[in-house]
């Protein structure tokens, strides 16, 4: 089955660099950068293509950093990781 295509928007002001999203992302498209936000925390970034919009990053983020987008596909199976 073809993977869905997605992307995320990251609110850099809220990120605290905790790394949970990086570890949880099944496609390994997130990584912590060297950049610091105004509060002094390192910021996560999307570093590669391949995001499927699975929402696991948003699920685990304790600080509400992620907005997750996913392409709609005709005839696709139930989206992976949809919030119940």
């Amino acid at each position, binding site marked *: 089955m073809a993977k869905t295509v*997605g*992307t995320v928007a990251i609110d850099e002001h*809220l990120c*605290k660099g*905790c790394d949970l999203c990086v570890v949880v992302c099944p496609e390994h498209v997130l990584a912590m950068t060297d950049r610091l936000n105004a509060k002094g925390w390192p910021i996560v970034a999307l570093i590669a293509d391949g995001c499927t919009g699975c929402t696991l990053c948003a699920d685990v983020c304790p600080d509400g950093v992620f907005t997750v987008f996913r392409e709609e596909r005709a005839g696709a199976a139930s989206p992976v990781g949809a919030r119940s």
Partner: protein
Amino acid sequence: MKVVAEPIAEALAPHGFDFCPGCGYGSVLLALTDVVREMQEPPVFMVDIGCVDFMTAHMPGDVLMGPHGRTSVLASGYKRMQPHRLVCAVQGDGGFMGLGAAESLHTAARGEQITIIVLNNGVLADTGGQLAATTLAGKATSTTPDGRGPQHGPPLPFLEMLSLLSGVAFAERVAIDSALGVRRVRRAIAKAFEVQRSGAGLSIVEVLSPCPTHWRMDSVQAWEYITQSVRTVYPTGVLVDRTRVEATAHDQGHDE
């Protein structure tokens, strides 16, 4: 593309949460807000002293903070006089199982019709990470520099003890140590409020919450600590559900 997940702006306003990186309290707050925003009228919240009181500015409803550990009885008094309102006490393990243990015990004994959300991070975090009733054996804290030893007794299975009482209509323990775990928090909270609405008795959700700062680990290690260590002493699952004649296999027992 369409949005399939977005942060709850009203919870995060104005500048996000004040918890440490990787702390579970933010996840609980987001889950709680997600449940509450689907309600016609939000619950009234009572919050304990501890790291929970950093939730106060973000609670999705009216909130009062009271003396340490007495939250359940404060909430009980309110609920008795405003029975049509949902009332929710939010406490840490230090307040619920430690200093306020007697109040928690008798709230359960009386079957007060409130919901208690307990965030169990195994230390007294707000004051700098001292030994708590729930600290695991051998764990170093600022008051047990050589680790929790026999002179401190074993960690207290408080929710298990309270679940023996018929006044506890529903008690579930969930863990923030995976994406699945975080999602279970929301389901358990939603169920707890349903139980309160039904008038069946006390509903309690205990959330095993990571505390990277005082566990002296990073966030990922803290998740692993919960999965590998904390859950051996504090197993997740529904401890008791007296609202159903038969609990289903889905709800019963330990998961994973």
